[in-house]
C-alpha cells in the first residue's frame, strides 16, 4: 500500500485526532524515532528506549515544551552565536546554528526555526550583514511555536528581509513590488489567491522603509499615503494593514497548513482540501497558533501511519545533525556546515526567495556521495573534527557479537532490527572479523569495537538512511 493510499483511507473528522496505541497499532521504537526525527533531528538510543516507555501524549507534550535548562542553554548558545558574529565569518554563524540544533534541549524549536528560515528564505549572499541575519534568525526562533501573525508583523520590518527584497527602493511614486509579491505568494496566500493589482497596491502600502544603522526606519516622506485597494479592502493602508489583510484571507491558513503538512507529515502525499480542512479551520480559529497546529499534526493518527512514516527525504541538515545526535558524539560544527554546503543546504544562504525545494532534489550522485563519505567519517576512529565513534556506543550499551551489532545499528537508525539486509550485513561483518583477528592484540573488546564501526557504517549507507 502506497503512502497516498494509506492517507486516503483516513476521514477528515478522525484523521487528526490523537493517536493512542492499540493491539494492531502499537507504540514502538519506529514511532518514537519517527516523532523525534520530525519534531527534532533524531533520537539517540536512550531517547528511543525511554520514549517507548512513555505515553505518546506525554512524549509529544515534552517535545512541545522542550527539556530542562532552556534558559541556561539560551545563554550558552547566545555566547557562541555572538562569537560567531564577532568573527565576521558566515561559516561560523552557520556553525553556531548547528550547535543549537545539536545541543538544544528544545530541538522542535530549532526545527521550526529552520522551517521558517526556508519560508522567509533570506540569504546572507545579498544581505551581507551577519548581525541582521542573526537578528532574523532569533525572530524565527522566538515565534517558531508562537502565533504566525506577530511573527509576520516582525518579519515585514526585519532589516535582513527588507534588504533581501529591496524594500529600500520601494518609494512613493517608484514602488518596488518584490516584498509585496513575496508576502502574498510565498509568505501568506500562495499563487492564485491574489491579483497583480493587489500586489501593486500592496507595494504602495509598503513604501517608506529604509535601513539605518542596521535598523528598519520609517520615512514618512517616502511613503505613499494615498488610498489603496488590497484584496477587496480599500483605505489609506500601511505595512501593518497589508499584514492584517493577508492574515484575514481564508487562503492564508490553507497555504500555511499545506506547507506545514509537507514539513511534518509527508512529502509524498498530496492531501485534499477536505482532509486538511479541520487543521485549516482550527489554525484560523486559534489565530494562527503554530504550536497547536504542530502538536495536532504530531499527535495524529495520520502522523503515526504509513502515510507519514519515512515519507520524507532527509535534508542535509537532518542527515548531518541527526547522525551526530544518534551516535551521541561530537563533531566540528564548522565541518558540519561545510558538509551541508556540499549537499546544497547552506544555512543562511537559501538559493532563492522560494527557499530550498527539498524532497528528491536533495539527492543526486554528488550529494549522495557526500552523504556516504560523511557516514564513513562519522563511523571511523575519532580524529580532531569527529568524535562520534560507534565503538563507544557498542561498549556503552553492551552490544556484542556481529548479529547483535548489526541489529543494534539497524534499530538505532532505522528501527528495523530484522531488516531484510541483516543476513548480508552480518556476513560482511563476519568477513571483516576474520581480517581483524589476524591483527595482533585484537582482544574481543577491540574486535567488537572495530566491528561496531563497520556495522554502523554499513547501516548508515542503506538507502533508508536517506529517509526521515
Amino acid at each position: 500500500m502506497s503512502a497516498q493510499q494509506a492517507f486516503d483511507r483516513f476521514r477528515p473528522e478522525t484523521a487528526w485526532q490523537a493517536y493512542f496505541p492499540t493491539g494492531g497499532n502499537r507504540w514502538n521504537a519506529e514511532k518514537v524515532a519517527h516523532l523525534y526525527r520530525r519534531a527534532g533531528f533524531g533520537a539517540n538510543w536512550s531517547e528511543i528506549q525511554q520514549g517507548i516507555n512513555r505515553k505518546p501524549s506525554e512524549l509529544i507534550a515534552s517535545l512541545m515544551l522542550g527539556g530542562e535548562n532552556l534558559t541556561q542553554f539560551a545563554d550558552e548558545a547566545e555566547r557562541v552565536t555572538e562569537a560567531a558574529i564577532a568573527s565576521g565569518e558566515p561559516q561560523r554563524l552557520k556553525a553556531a546554528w548547528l550547535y543549537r540544533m545539536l545541543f538544544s534541549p528544545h530541538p522542535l524549536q530549532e526545527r521550526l526555526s529552520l522551517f521558517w528560515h526556508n519560508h522567509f528564505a533570506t540569504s546572507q549572499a545579498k544581505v551581507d550583514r551577519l548581525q541582521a541575519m542573526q537578528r532574523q534568525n532569533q525572530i524565527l526562533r522566538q515565534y517558531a511555536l508562537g502565533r504566525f501573525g506577530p511573527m509576520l508583523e516582525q518579519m515585514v520590518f526585519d532589516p535582513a528581509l527588507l534588504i533581501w527584497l529591496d524594500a529600500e527602493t520601494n518609494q512613493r511614486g517608484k514602488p518596488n513590488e518584490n516584498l509585496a509579491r513575496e508576502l502574498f505568494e510565498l509568505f501568506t496566500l500562495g499563487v492564485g489567491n491574489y491579483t497583480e493589482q493587489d500586489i501593486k497596491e500592496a507595494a504602495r502600502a509598503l513604501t517608506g522603509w529604509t535601513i539605518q544603522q542596521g535598523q528598519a526606519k520609517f520615512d514618512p516622506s517616502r511613503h505613499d499615503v494615498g488610498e489603496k485597494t488590497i484584496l477587496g479592502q480599500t483605505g489609506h493602508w500601511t505595512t501593518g494593514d497589508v499584514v492584517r489583510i493577508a492574515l484575514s484571507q481564508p487562503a492564508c491558513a490553507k497555504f500555511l497548513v499545506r506547507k506545514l503538512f509537507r514539513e511534518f507529515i509527508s512529502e509524498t502525499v498530496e492531501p485534499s482540501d477536505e482532509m486538511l480542512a479541520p487543521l485549516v479551520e482550527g489554525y484560523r480559529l486559534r489565530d494562527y497558533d503554530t504550536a497547536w497546529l504542530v502538536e495536532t499534526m504530531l499527535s495524529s493518527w495520520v502522523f503515526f501511519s504509513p502515510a507519514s512514516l519515512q515519507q520524507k527525504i532527509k535534508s542535509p541538515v537532518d542527515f548531518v545533525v541527526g547522525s551526530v545526535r544518534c551516535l551521541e558524539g561530537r563533531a566540528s560544527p564548522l565541518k558540519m556546515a561545510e558538509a551541508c554546503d556540499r549537499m546544497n543546504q547552506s544555512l543562511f544562504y537559501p538559493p532563492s526567495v522560494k527557499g530550498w525545494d527539498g524532497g528528491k532534489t536533495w539527492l543526486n550522485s554528488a550529494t549522495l556521495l557526500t552523504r556516504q563519505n560523511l557516514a564513513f567519517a562519522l563511523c571511523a576512529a575519532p580524529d580532531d573534527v569527529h568524535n562520534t565513534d560507534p565503538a563507544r556506543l557498542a561498549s556503552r550499551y553492551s552490544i556484542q557479537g556481529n548479529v547483535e551489532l548489526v541489529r543494534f545499528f539497524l534499530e538505532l537508525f532505522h528501527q528495523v532490527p530484522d531488516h531484510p539486509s541483516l543476513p548480508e550485513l552480518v556476513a560482511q561483518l563476519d568477513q571483516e572479523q576474520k581480517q581483524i583477528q589476524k591483527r595482533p592484540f585484537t582482544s574481543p573488546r577491540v574486535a567488537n569495537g572495530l566491528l561496531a564501526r563497520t556495522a554502523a557504517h554499513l547501516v548508515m549507507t542503506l538507502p533508508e538512511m536517506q529517509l526521515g
Partner: protein
Amino acid sequence: MGTGMDFHRFRLLLLLGSLVCFGGSETTRAAERAERQLVHKNAVFVVEVRNPLQWAKHPLIEQDWKIFSQSAQLQSRLRTPEFGRVLAARDFLENASGQNWQEALDELTAGGIWIGLSPKPDERATMIFSARNGDAWNRLREAVFKMLDGQGQPRPAFEIYRGEKIYRLDESSAVIVGPRLLVGSQKRDLKRMMDQLLDDSRTAKVSLSSYENAEAAIKWEINLEAIRQLPGLQKALKHPAEDAGAVAVLGGWLDLLRQGDWLRGEFLWPKNSSEIEIKLTADSVEPGDGLAGFFTSDSEDKLAPLLEPPGTIYSASWYRDYQALWNQRDELLTPSALAKLEKADGDIKQQFSVFGVSFTPSGLFQQLGTQFRVVVARANETEYRVTLKNRLPAAALCVSLPDEPAFLAQADPLSRALGLVSAFGEAKMLTKRTEYGGAKLTGYWFRDDEKSAARGNQLRFNFNPTWTVARKHFVLGSTQKIVTQVIDELDRQAERRSTDEDSREEAALITDRQLFVFSELSGGLSDFREAIIQGSIFDRGLRLQEAESELEIAQDFLQSFGRLTTQAAFGNQNFEYQIRLSPNARILKDR
C-alpha cells in the same frame, strides 16, 4: 613455518618493541657498554635508553597524567579500540611473563635499549634490547608464537645462523641471542652482531652490576663527520657560503657542524630531583675564525642577563657581533653572494633616498652592539579605549648600542619614514611621542575612536609598536607598556650589576640563554581564553562547558611544567647546550 612474513606480524613485533621502549628497570650505567660496540659501524645516530620505566614514575609525569585523566576528551579516546590494542598488548605481556607489565618490561630491558640509525644512502637501522636474563626474550617469543598459532597465523620465516634462528619480519630481521633481542634492517648487521656476541664471552653477558643506582636517561650521539657527508647538508655547510641570509641567522651553528666530530646528548632525570635536564655537547670546537661574531669569546662584551618583566612567558639573550660579521663578509661569503649583498644594501639606500632619508641596513647593523635580548610577556592592560576579549602577549627586542648618537643618526630617518607610511597606510596610524624615565618613546597607534574601533579585526588593539633609545640600548616593543617595562628592567639590572661581580664571571663564556615560563604561558591562555574556547567549539565540536573544562586542564598541565631554561656555552674546546626543566613544585604538591 617457513612462509613469508606478513605485514601484520611485523607490526606486532614493532609494537612489542615500542612497548619495550616504555618499560625499564634499575639498570646501570657503564662508561662504554658492550651494546655500543654492537650497534652497526658508521651509525649516524646512536641512542641509548636507560631506566625508561623510571620516567613513568617521575612526579611530573604522574602528576600530568592525573591532570590529563580529568579530560573527557582523553577519557573518550581511552575507550577506543585503538587504545584497546595497547591494553591487549599489556595483558598479553602480563600473561606471557606471569608478571605485571611494568615488571615484565623491566625484565626485558634491564640492560637498556640501543638504537643505531643511518639515513640515506646507507639507510640502516639496528636495535638491541638487553634483558635481565637469558630466558626473557625466548619466553616472550614462545608466547607470540602461541598467539599466532591460536589465531591460525603462520609463524615468521627464519634462517639458521650459528645455531640461532634469524626471523624475517617484513623489511627487517630479528634474532634472540641469549638475553638480547637484536633487530636490524640488514641481515648482515645481525650476523655481525651475532659473531661478536658468540665469539666474545665478555660481550655476551649483560652487565648489570655497574648500572645500579644510575639515573634514568636517554643518551644519543650524532656523528657529525657522517652528517657532513649527507648530500642535503653539503650545500648548507659550504664555506664561504652562497646565502647571506643563512650566514646571518645560522652561520655560527652551521660552523659548529663543520668543526665538531660528535654531537652528544643526554636526556637526564637526575637522582632525587624533580628537574629534567637535556645536554648537548659538541667536542673539538672553539669560538674562533668562522664562529667569531656569533658566539662570545674573550672579548669585553658578555652575554646580557635575561629581561624578566612581570608576566614573562619567554625571554632570550644572545651574543651576536654584526659589525664583526660585516667586516668579515668577504671571508664568509662567496664573491657572487657578497656582490648580491652589497647591491641589495645599495638598492635599499637608493629607495630610502626618495624620501630624503639616508639609510642602509649595513649602516644600521654596524651601529648595533653585541647584546641582543627578546622578551615576550603577558599584557595585562590594554592601552586603547577598547575592551579586548582576546589579549595577545607583548614582545620586545632590546639591543645594546655602543654609540647612541650614531645609532640615532641611522634610525631617526627610518623612523620618520615609517611614521609617514603608517599614517598614510590603510590603518591611518597615529605617531605619538612620550617620555618615560627620561627616555623618549616613539609609538605608532591605531585609531580607537568609536567608528574606527568598530571596523576590522579587534586583535590589532593588542599592538601599538613603540621604540626608544635608552640606557645605551635600542628597545623596540609591540606595545608601549612593554617598552617601559624593559626600561625598568635595564635600570634594575644596572643597579644589581654594580653589586654583583660574580655573575659576570660566571657568564663569561655563556653565549645564549633562554627562558620559558610555562606557568605564565598557562595564565596567558586566559588572556586568549575566548578564542581558544571558540576554537574548541567550532573546530572540535565541544560544548561550551566542555571547552572551558578542557582549557582549565590544559592550563593546569602547562602550569605543572614550571620553568624551562636553556643555555649555550663554550668550555675547553667544547660547546655545551643545556636545557633544564624545573617543574612547578607547588602544583605537584597541591594536586
